[in-house]
């Protein structure tokens, strides 16, 4: 296999498996930019996967192939609501944000399987009939080389994720809303003196993160796993969190980091199929993505400076 063919395997699979991380990491950007740590991404993602699969299973006979798409939206909404728990505990009740995030994870995993057992009488759902499929982009996929790399056998969701990253960037850096959200995460008291409702902004941040993380989980479920069980989401949320920090809390950075994971992942997996890499012991290939990330951070990315007020609850008149 020559390099062109190898890339034609690696890039599409990377974009394919990166999409859920991108969505989730973008969600994280909103929450943490508003000053609320969100360890709960894992739980939100899991709950999104759960919601999308259940709803798809319930809808698919009636609505057919649009079921997964509907379910993704529903998952987003449900998780936006689910995230309110985190918001209420950590913003209104001033609970330690990490604590309530962790609690959210426990709750999500317990509740989802519990409900599954209620609904289907078993801890693992059937497979959905209609999924989010990989597609070849008409015309573009015909372009020599590039077509195979970037426009073949990639699900629409991957493109949506990338587009969304740019939308988020625009919203956060080019609109009043974004300016206010970021100010609340940097210096809530300053924002307050400028008449910005800190509490409200933070709620929005957390709820948006729930929405996107839910979509992230749903995308994973409907485009990759195809069913839901306790182990469907196992750590992807934490990877998304890492991507968000890796990307320095910037939408495009987070997207880049998520795709970087995707690439490293698919390289490490397809490695066993690639002539040169074949001979490397598989364990090295498996840990490569994580080692690479650490090296990248240590090497060139360096210090990740989070929002100044990240993790602190806001009290009027506290110095």
């Amino acid at each position, binding site marked *: *296999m020559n390099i062109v*063919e190898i890339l*034609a*395997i690696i890039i*599409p*699979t990377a974009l*394919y*498996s990166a999409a859920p991380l991108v969505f989730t990491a973008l969600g994280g950007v909103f929450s943490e930019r508003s000053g609320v740590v969100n360890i709960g991404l894992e739980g939100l993602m899991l709950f999104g996967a759960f919601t999308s699969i259940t709803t798809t299973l319930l809808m698919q006979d009636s609505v057919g192939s649009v079921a997964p798409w509907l379910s993704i939206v529903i998952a987003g909404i449900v998780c936006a609501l689910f995230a309110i728990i985190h918001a209420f505990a950590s913003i209104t009740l001033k609970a330690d944000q990490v604590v309530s995030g962790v609690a959210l994870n426990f709750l999500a995993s317990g509740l989802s399987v519990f409900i599954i057992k209620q609904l289907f009488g*078993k*801890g*693992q759902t*059937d*497979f959905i*009939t209609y*999924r989010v*499929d*990989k*597609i*070849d982009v008409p015309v573009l996929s015909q372009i020599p080389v590039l077509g195979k790399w970037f426009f073949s*056998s990639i699900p629409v969701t991957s493109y949506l994720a990338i587009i969304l990253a740019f939308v988020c960037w625009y919203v956060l850096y080019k609109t009043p809303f974004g300016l206010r959200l970021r100010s609340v995460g940097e210096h809530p008291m300053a924002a307050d003196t400028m008449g910005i409702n800190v509490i409200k902004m933070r709620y929005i941040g957390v709820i948006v993160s729930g929405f996107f993380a839910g979509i992230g989980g749903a995308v*994973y479920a409907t*485009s*990759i*796993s*195809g*069913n839901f*069980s*306790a*182990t*469907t989401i*196992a750590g992807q949320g934490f990877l998304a969190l890492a991507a968000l920090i890796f990307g320095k809390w910037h939408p495009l950075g987070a997207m880049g980091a998520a795709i970087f994971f995707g690439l490293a*992942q*698919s390289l490490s*997996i*397809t490695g*066993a*199929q690639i002539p040169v890499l074949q001979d490397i012991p*598989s364990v090295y290939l*498996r840990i490569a993505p994580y080692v690479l990330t650490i090296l990248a951070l240590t090497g060139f990315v360096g210090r990740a400076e989070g929002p100044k007020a990240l993790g602190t609850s806001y009290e009027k008149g506290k110095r």
Partner: protein
Amino acid sequence: ACGKGAGSNSSDFHIGMVTDQGGIDDKSFNQSAWEGIEKYGKDHDMKKGTDFKYIQSTSQSEFEPNLSKFVDADYDLTYGIGFYLEDAIQQMAEENPKSRFALVDSLLLDKNSKPVFLDNVVNITFREEQGSFLMGVIAAKQTKTNKVGFVGGANSPLIKKFENGFKAGVKAANPKVEVYSQYAGSFNEADKGSTIASAMYDKGADVIYTAAGGTGNGVFTEAKNRKKKGQDVWVIGVDRDQYQEGMPENVTLTSMVKRVDVATYDISKRTEKGNFPGGKEIVYGLKENAIGLSPTKKNLSKEELAAVDEWKKKISDGEVNVPKTDDEFASFSVK
């Protein structure tokens, strides 16, 4: 814990089962094992939940306590499903010589990991390699590219049986066919499954045999995506008839079914009849119809089926000895 016959005494024979972390509805051997017990229960009007019952293990540390629940409630026979329960079964069996256990998929191993046998434990194992061999034959006949793939879960002796059996079958049916094989490293990473499959398909394989549990889901996903786009690719399922998983795109060529239910039914019967085969390894294979082709054969051609029957006979007659390990495969050949 509650004593035997809590509720009613519809029967004085009690069967317990402890799943491994896969859970009761793993679409695999836990589920199949339970189906066998359930069937046996129904046939002998035993009461589900009291006369026959299962506990799911959510973590490795629960195996032992879960088994002991049945011991304490002195059930007559307790199944431990999957080799992960080996230690726990051994421990419990030694502590409770009166209770009888059945361990699926493994022998008991001693300190130097040599097999040991306890009189109150029956070891149930299967000749997965035989079934896998037939899958290999089918794959070799089916492929148009002369390339096929095998995707395994964790790289363990058990899954190795699937791989080597498969490779042997391919080799036997058509030595020119190349087999790509790769292990995902775990049974629950669908994304890895689909990435591996995608790589194999891209390299020209058109049939993939998957023995990888949830990781296999990814293989199906990938195949369906490609079938949709008109690519002629197939998946061979494992453990149960995975025809449904292949729908609606219909990518399941066939499945290697491992009838754990046959075994659990059989052992339960023997035990109730009073001849519990303790201290033995009971092996189930083609001969016992505990290993074989899925009932759904829609996608198989006449000659594929013919070939299958031919090899089945050879194997049953012991003409062909299907390799389990890499070494056995290395020295495997058919005249």
